[in-house]
């Protein structure tokens, strides 16, 4: 431990602190806002840790009669959109990887580039024509725009790295392609399935733009519900921040718990996405 080394360690920890603090401070401030009474939220200079915690902000959010509806809407939309995407996307990723049909990935690239709003105009008309607008079905279907490309993209990457020898051996032993996929390829690709699932869930859960157009009063998902609270409830910051934290808490929890999978998926997807 020479002085130069110690100096380096201090510098390193200082830079780590500087880099991580915007994220930490933001979320701490979010928690602080959500736990303060109006008096504390409106005081200047701002109070960071109040004397009394306003747990009632959270109780208020859960007690408002529609919040649970919106929560279950979010669960249904994200659950169905992710489940369907896994159902069609995982076999597709396998097929594309085995056929080495790399040109088909261009469709996924175009989907990645296209602004979400441009899907909304035609699909909005289609759903209106089909008379589906009062239900959750339109949102489930349009969330597939987000989830299916993610799942296909990540699964192509994973199946490309899994060994072919086992599959060939199984085929020669008389297994069908489906059996090879189901019993040989799929178990090996389990880490990839986790990555695709987690990312699809997060990006579907967070989606806002599809909801503001397609959701009615009864079919709002949580991000849309929170947005509507901003416009009607500008001044009571405590419950608003509490609602915001409740909406994003599942995702933040998932990020910390599954950060290795998320990082793997994002870098794989992102690096290939370029």
């Amino acid at each position, binding site marked *: 431990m020479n002085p130069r080394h110690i100096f380096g360690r201090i510098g390193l920890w200082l830079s780590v602190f500087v*880099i*991580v603090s*915007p994220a930490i401070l*933001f*979320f701490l*401030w979010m928690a602080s*806002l959500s736990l303060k009474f109006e008096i504390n*939220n409106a005081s*200047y200079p*701002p109070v960071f840790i109040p004397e009394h915690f306003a747990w009632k902000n959270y109780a208020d959010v859960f007690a408002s009669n529609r919040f649970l509806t919106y929560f279950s809407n979010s669960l249904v939309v994200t659950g169905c959109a992710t489940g369907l995407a896994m159902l*069609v*996307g995982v*076999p*597709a990723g*396998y*097929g*594309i990887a*085995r*056929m080495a049909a790399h040109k088909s990935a261009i*469709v996924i690239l*175009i*989907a990645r*580039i296209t*602004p979400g*709003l441009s*899907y909304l*105009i*035609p*699909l909005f008309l289609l759903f209106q024509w089909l008379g589906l607008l009062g239900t959750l079905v339109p949102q489930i*279907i349009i969330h597939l725009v987000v989830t*299916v*490309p993610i799942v296909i993209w990540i699964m192509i990457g994973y199946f490309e790295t899994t060994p072919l020898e086992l599959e060939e051996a199984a*085929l020669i032993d*008389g*297994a*069908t*392609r*489906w059996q*090879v996929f189901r019993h040989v390829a799929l178990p090996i690709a389990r880490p990839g399935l986790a990555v695709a699932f987690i990312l699809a869930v997060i990006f579907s*859960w*967070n989606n*806002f*733009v599809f909801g*503001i157009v397609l959701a009615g009063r009864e079919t709002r998902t*949580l991000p849309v519900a929170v947005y509507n609270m*901003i416009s009607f409830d500008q001044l009571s910051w405590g419950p608003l*921040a509490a609602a*915001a*934290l409740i909406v*994003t808490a599942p*995702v933040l929890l*998932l*990020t910390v718990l599954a*950060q290795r999978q998320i*990082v793997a998926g*994002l*870098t794989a997807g992102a*690096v290939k*996405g*370029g």
Partner: protein
Amino acid sequence: MSVVTQASSAADKAFSSEVGTGSREENASKQDSRAGGSGDVAPAREWRPPSYWPFVIPALVVVLAVIVFPWVFTIWMSMQEWKVGSPTVFVGLANYLRLPTDPRFVEAVGHTLSYTALSVVLPLVFGTLAAVVFHQKFAARGFLRGIFIMPMMATPVAIALVWTMMFHPQLGVLNYLLSLVGLPPQLWVFNPTTVIPSLVLVETWQWTPLVMLIVLGGLAAIPTEPYESAQIDGANFWQVFRFITLPLIMPFLFIAGMIRMIDAVKSFDIIFAITQGGPGSASETINVYLYSVAFVYYDLGYGSAIAVVFFLLIVALAALLLYLRKRLLWTSELGDAA
């Protein structure tokens, strides 16, 4: 007794295996015919390279329905005069010709370009610095990296809500922080001249982690030899970064820049939730304007034309970046030769 059971179980096995192979063959033939193969069932012994089309077809149907169909429909619709509730009239390219004469659209293009430029450059700079730090070994690195990427995974609307409170001119914490270092209070998103930089601040805070992750992947791929020889030659930290690290991570920086560009151009949630394009139309980007045209004024024909032009603009920007990359690689190779 026991012989009988054995025999029957053997028969069971034989039966089930027969059923098994039967259904297997049936499956195979079904897959062949679905894949548009020759149709006749291949003999079981002959091995053929498998067709994987049946795996792809369900996804293909979904992609056709939710991605390709909307695209075709949008292009067709962009040539119609179509407002909800009134009949459609074919107008050819009139919607496109209207774009350059629409001051709000022209202004929105300007906002989009400045917002994008800032939202690409700032996360690239901070993300690279953060990656250099996260490339070092220190305690709890994995956990801290998890914290660091939280901004980009969190629900954008929820984040936007808290930033709106932080930007508040009287009660917001940002003006308090400015007063601590002796700077005058700002109006942030409530002033037309500072609204775009303020939104870029949020975007940068949110997306610097993605750049960090990509560059970190690049740093992991760099061999250690150049660093060892640089250390022997007595290069300082800045020289090492400028002449070894930076050139080697250049390809990753381009990829990060490309992704950042695509996402920044399309940015919607943050802008819409914090300012709705205001004050006035000072932060109205193409995406926000597209929303107003299509779903506030319900001018779907014109909105579709904006969507098409918007997509072409993104493709053009991506092509420009690719061209710049070629040019830069070429000049750097030239520099190496000289």
